[in-house]
């Protein structure tokens, strides 16, 4: 007889003990047992009631063949039957597998970015500042829903059904999105040369491309800048595309290491795949200048490299979406075929809606149709078709000229506030007499500032001043307000004033 470790079955006990000791659902039954301790002999159906509850109220008598009801029906019949049942097969409670299949699963490390907000939320200090989160905040530190979005939602609610979108998503939304990236009057759009599908924000667009790259260029690898958004590494890893890195950030100048970057581009094998941040590089805020982009584009032509742009901040960087798409327009002029991941998380504040777009520029319409169909084949076993709500918001706004104007204004407001905070933070630090150079705060662009703070300095900021940021020293300028910029500057000054370099 197999000893069922989970039961405290003592076959030598008397009837009452035996009933007490049968453990099916250990904790639950123990609670009930304690309650019933003096009444067991009056409740022949106690077990049955217990199981009725387990099964959500379904009546027991309906299921004569279950082994658990077998146990209890024999229970109702008498304890001798129970002894028989327990002594024989132990078919009842997870009999075979005494332990979980997942016992050996290791706890995963916390996400380095999202863990910061968790820690911030747990901090009771009233002066705490969250400059870790990559989400826009207004000058009161509050999240913002754009007015154009509210209006779009009002128009949508109650009027449309919730049928499945096609696998490639909302055609209307994709069309409008391509205009943003490729230009309103782009010939490529007219000639239908762009294979494009709605994707789950920037992450989903990158992942879909990575899977596509794996399937159709299985011998390729991806070159990723150092540093980059941490999740880029995860995405291409999970798509099983090997990764290499290329120089990007220059710590000494807190700017672009252009020479080293060009070297890496030249030394990579011809036809390599490169991930480029179209604007507002995350996490450094350091972008190539227009001249530098032209040099990069030229070298890509010489080497035959494939450019994949991650554009998560169009409009958010300079305040002008056309200006922020400059890198892409340069590559278009130079005749490259490339891919783009676009996101509306930041520039339309649609973070949680997960709205984005993946596009791949092709030779002709026929190829675009083929590529799009294959992208859909990858989307189908991942999520079948993308969520409709966010896409409706985007297409409602972008296809209405008045609403689109409102959006453009609101994007500029967000970008301007950030630029203003950059100026204020740098100004405060200089006013405090910091020995270090803080020029990079206003040189860098977009949501993030790569402060140059070391992990130890960041820890001090957190522990002593309750200021939360990622340990690479990345400050989300969106979290800086007129209310906290002085405090932030003071704290940064404190932890850096004794350092000769940062």
């Amino acid at each position, binding site marked *: 007889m197999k000893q069922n470790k*989970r039961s405290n079955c003592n076959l030598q006990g008397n009837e009452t003990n035996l009933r007490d000791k049968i453990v099916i*659902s250990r*904790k*639950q039954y123990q609670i009930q047992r304690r309650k019933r301790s003096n009444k067991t002999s009056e409740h022949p159906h106690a077990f049955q009631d217990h199981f009725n509850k*387990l099964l*959500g109220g*379904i009546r027991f008598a309906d*299921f004569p*063949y*279950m*082994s658990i009801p077998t146990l209890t029906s024999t229970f109702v019949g008498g304890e001798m039957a129970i002894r028989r049942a327990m002594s024989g097969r132990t078919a009842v409670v997870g*009999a*075979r*597998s005494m*332990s979980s*299949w*997942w*016992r050996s*699963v290791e706890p995963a490390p916390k996400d380095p970015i999202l863990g910061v907000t968790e820690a911030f939320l747990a901090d009771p200090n009233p002066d705490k500042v969250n400059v870790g989160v990559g*989400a826009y905040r207004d000058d009161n530190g509050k*999240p913002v829903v754009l007015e154009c*979005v509210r209006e779009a939602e*009002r128009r949508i*609610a109650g009027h449309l059904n*919730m*049928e499945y*979108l096609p696998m490639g998503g909302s055609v209307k939304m994709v069309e409008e999105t391509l205009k943003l990236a490729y230009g309103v009057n782009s010939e490529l759009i007219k000639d239908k040369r762009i294979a494009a599908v709605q994707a789950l*924000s920037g*992450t989903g667009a990158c992942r879909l491309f990575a899977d596509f790259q794996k*399937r*159709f260029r*299985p011998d390729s690898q991806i070159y990723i800048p150092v540093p980059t958004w941490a*999740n880029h590494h*995860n*995405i291409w890893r999970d798509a099983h595309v090997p990764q290499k890195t290329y120089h990007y950030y220059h710590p000494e100048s807190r700017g672009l290491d252009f020479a080293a970057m060009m070297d890496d581009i030249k030394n990579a*094998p*011809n*036809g390599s795949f490169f991930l480029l941040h179209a604007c507002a590089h995350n996490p450094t805020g350091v972008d190539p200048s227009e001249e530098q982009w032209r040099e990069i584009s030229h070298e890509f*032509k010489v080497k*035959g490299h494939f450019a994949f742009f991650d554009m998560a901040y169009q409009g958010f960087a300079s305040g002008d979406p056309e200006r922020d798409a400059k890198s892409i327009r340069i590559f278009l002029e130079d*005749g*490259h075929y490339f891919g783009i991941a676009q996101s509306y998380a930041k520039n339309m504040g*649609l*973070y*949680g*809606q*997960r709205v984005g777009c993946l596009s791949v520029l*092709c*030779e002709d319409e026929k*190829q675009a*149709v*083929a*590529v799009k169909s*294959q992208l859909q084949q990858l989307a189908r*076993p991942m*999520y*079948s*078709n993308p*969520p*409709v709500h966010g896409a409706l918001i985007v297409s409602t706004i972008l296809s209405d000229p008045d609403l689109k104007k409102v959006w453009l204004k609101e994007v500029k407001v967000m970008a301007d506030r950030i630029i203003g905070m950059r100026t204020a933070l740098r100004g405060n630090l200089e006013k405090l007499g910091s020995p270090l150079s803080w020029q990079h705060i206003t040189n860098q662009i977009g949501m993030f500032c790569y402060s140059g703070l070391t992990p130890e300095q960041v820890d001090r900021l957190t522990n002593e001043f309750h200021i939360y940021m990622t340990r690479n020293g990345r400050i989300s300028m969106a979290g800086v307000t007129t209310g906290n910029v002085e405090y932030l500057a003071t704290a940064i000054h404190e932890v850096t004033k004794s350092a000769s370099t940062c």
Partner: protein
Amino acid sequence: MRRPEFTSSSSSPTDRRLSVLVRHLATSSPVMDSQTTVTFSPTSGFHGDSVFSHVVRAPEDPILGVTVAYNKDPSPVKLNLGVGAYRTEEGKPLVLNVVRKAEQMLVNDRSRVKEYLPIVGLAEFNKLSAKLIFGADSPAIRENRVTTVQCLSGTGSLRVGAEFLARHYHQRSIYIPQPTWGNHPKIFTLSGLSVKTYRYYDPATRGLNFQGLLEDLGSAPSGSIVLLHACAHNPTGVDPTLEQWEQIRQLMRSKALLPFFDSAYQGFASGSLDADAMSVRMFVADGGECFVAQSYAKNMGLYGERVGALSVVCKTADVASKVESQLKLVIRPMFSNPPIHGASIVATILKDRNMYNEWTIELKAMADRIISMRQKLFDALRARGTPGDWSHIIKQIGMFTFTGLNSEQVAFMTREYHIYMTSDGRISMAGLSSKTVPHLADAIHAAVTGMS
């Protein structure tokens, strides 16, 4: 040298390796030249080829292609019985009243923001979803042994679960019923699992091949994963009885087979949320572990919002928490965090007693309309004296009926009667109405009597 062709079905590792060899053997392969000029480079402007010029067009999705064909047909009597989406008596898509109400509440609440959800999704939604499928008093929930993560409807929940299994489970084989939803094998294959089948549908009886099922599961290697349709099997509409479920459960537990439930029709099948969850609850009640993918596409009519949840029932709370942390690592590089809108609607409804009750009533109305369509179709065929036993129409359950018609008969019905369905003879009862049942019955009758 011709570039190798790539279709989605030919992207096996062997094919890919062959294609790499072929490209390297090609004399004009551009990647072999180290100091090439601009014209030979793969991505250089309009002079060169795109690096994806070898990509060929993928075949149309067999299910969604039916609607495409239907849309093209100008006939006034055309009938779309392909789509797996509920239609009213007027043939219109339906947004539940309670869903509209919830939406309005969300829109009017100016305090709501659109921030990122956590990686695992909306916490309230997750808790309520677990309660819905496992029962409010489920000991597994009370003991914190369940981890639930919000995913993109049923598809997304299956994919996240399968990716987790491919990374952390000792067995790489998943057994799926024959037949099953067309997307199942693709989901599991792409996740890195190896797909095998077990007998399920018996064409002779148009019912369950129970013996075959037991034999096939009985001979599966210990620990294999088994996909189970919680209720309203898609595409056949054939479900095991509760007695049969119990036998399946015993067999599976005795062989330590891991159950992976796909629950896409809870409440939609019989009209009762609890009854439709019985199979799942039986497995949870025995204390063992299982995976459950839930979808709100049909039972709340939230199709395009992509709302679903993956639950993993574990032996201990500690294990459940570790599993959750690993599920996050699957989700983050796939879509970072799930969409907020649909989950907010579901949570709004499930947590409010009145709205929940309203929902159950609307849900039962949908299920009842489908059941009445089944009866009407059965009666209509009997009235016409159509040869054959059509009782399976009223025995099968859920949105679909596996008519038993073959592909020639289906093609005939499309050609002559403008009736659109998948070529395996599956019809969506949701697409029928009292007005259109006679037309369908005529078509079936003609197909069965006119053809051999």
